[in-house]
């Protein structure tokens, strides 16, 4: 491992510890909630069923990747990207956060235990933080076995080059950040309804939209794409048309394109994190986005008192 890899590993472990310690000392009731929720993930079959199913798929994918690596030597810098960019990864990002968080508040609301929880001397944000942190903790547990396989591949002589651990770690950092955002959004979806299915569908739609949406839309926004957002696409009167065109172009170039670029999870992961390139604006986007949804969740719980 290079110095950069060690540094990144230390930063990641340090961040996780800081999150836990921060919860423990700044929001002790949140930490209690975290322990209880993580326990309920660990002692219920659903998490383990997800784990088994996903690793069946993943095992198959890794095996075929390795076979390919035997015939076509893979660039050591690219291996992490290929390893993480499999279809089971998309599944784990779209389905898993939704499944982990759908119960969060919807189930408590349905059974009425939310009343017991929120009449204990806890602040709403502590409950929200605890539940989100527990889901994130279990999410990390679900990814760990895959991460453990990598050093084995790297040292076991399965590959004819060494792994670039820095890009592997930054890939996992990306997944952690994306997971944190999607889980926060899932918590929010779950706080809106008492129907778990609805909550999970909402968060799946959100995750799918962020993963696939920008990549799908971007070709239509490129200059010369010939779409309706193209200058000159309207054939109206000349003065009106040119004003309209200016507006459209302005909207496209200063609003739509930058926003889509900023929320393009697939691009962030595939072209940046998985290749070992960290971009501060991406990291800020995920942390800020998570905080935003956790804040919305707290508000949504509070709103209940006033209805």
């Amino acid at each position: 491992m290079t110095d950069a890899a060690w540094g990144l590993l230390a930063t990641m472990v340090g961040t996780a510890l800081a999150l836990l310690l921060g919860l423990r000392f700044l929001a002790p009731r949140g930490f209690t909630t975290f322990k209880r929720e993580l326990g309920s993930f660990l002692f219920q079959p659903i998490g383990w069923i997800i784990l088994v199913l996903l690793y069946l798929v993943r095992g198959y994918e890794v095996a075929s990747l390795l076979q390919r690596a035997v015939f076509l030597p893979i660039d050591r810098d690219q291996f992490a990207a290929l390893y993480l960019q499999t279809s089971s990864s998309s599944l784990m990002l779209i389905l898993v956060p939704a499944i982990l968080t759908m119960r969060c508040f919807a189930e408590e609301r349905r059974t009425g235990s939310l009343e017991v929880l929120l009449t204990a001397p806890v602040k709403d944000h502590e409950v929200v933080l605890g539940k989100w942190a527990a889901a994130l903790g279990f999410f990390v547990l679900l990814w760990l076995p895959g991460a453990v396989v990598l050093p084995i591949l790297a040292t076991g002589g399965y590959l004819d080059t060494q792994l670039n651990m820095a890009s592997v770690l930054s890939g996992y950092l990306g997944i952690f950040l994306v997971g944190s955002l999607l889980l926060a959004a899932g918590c929010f979806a779950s706080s809106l309804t008492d129907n778990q299915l609805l909550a999970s569908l909402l968060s799946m739609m959100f995750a799918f939209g962020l993963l696939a949406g920008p990549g799908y839309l971007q070709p239509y926004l490129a200059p010369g794409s010939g779409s309706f957002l193209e200058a000159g696409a309207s054939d109206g009167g000349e003065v009106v048309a040119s004003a309209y065109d200016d507006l459209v172009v302005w909207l496209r170039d200063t609003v739509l394109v930058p926003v889509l670029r900023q929320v393009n999870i697939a691009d962030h992961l595939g072209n940046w994190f998985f290749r070992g390139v960290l971009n501060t604006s991406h990291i800020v986007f995920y942390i800020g986005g998570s905080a935003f949804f956790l804040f919305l969740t707290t508000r949504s719980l509070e709103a209940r008192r006033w209805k």
Partner: protein
Amino acid sequence: MIEVDHLSKRFGATLAVDDLSFRVARGEVVGFLGPNGAGKTTTIRVLAGYHSATSGAVRVAGHDVLTEPVEVRRNVGYLPENVPLYGDMRVVEYLRYRAELKGVPAAERKTAVERAMERCGVLEVRRKLVRHVSRGYRQRVGLADALVASPPVLILDEPTSGLDPNQRRRIKELVRELSEEHTILFSSHILAEVGEVSDRILLIDRGRLQADGTIDELLERAGGRTLRVEARAPAEELVGLLAEIDGCGPFRELADDGPFGVVEAGVEPEADPREACARRLQERGLLVRALALQLPTLESYFAEVTEGGAA
């Protein structure tokens, strides 16, 4: 300990609680009585800090529910109506978790949980999953949860609903025991229960406070005692015979039962005209089938207030 001033709670177009005011003093056990849908649970949820009031002020243990919700909840042990608990935890785990959530220090947690389990009689199910215990135990686990942090105020919403008579008796005994150290407000629609356990009764109906007083006070308000006479003679004749007896109020003829006339009379407080009536009837040689002094019941008062008002 509990001060409620002009509390109102509106859900959309329905006014669930309408200008409710009452006080509960330290160490009192107060029964919160009313028919289903009267606004008991809504009021209790405001007290427990689950709902916010639409208007009015609520203070519990000196803290305002609106501005210091966490302080209020620290002072209140709350048992909600259907006792929703986490089914996937074991009883003892659940109570430990709740104790931690309520801020019982780690060093005292174990003792606090054991004590609460012992008081509520759930020691024998401690290792069972909450979703596997019976309704009665579930209720007691909920009660143990309310007690575990020894809050000064206990608010129990329908603690005996859905229980069999034995379980009900045990809960009542427990509430009586707890009343030595806690201020208790509990709701019920079962009159006998409230009468047995509480010092004072708050009777609410359609969101409004209809009566507030000790059981004796309420009974007094419920109207006087009555004398019921059944004898083998037409009712009018009985009324004529008994009219002059001291302490008997206005007579009411009830439907004759075959050859027996049935008459009811109001009786002045402290008076007992039974002996005089019996003598009078005996003088006439009338066969007496029943002669009974009837005390007003909480039931009749309850019906009078909650239904009489509606008519």
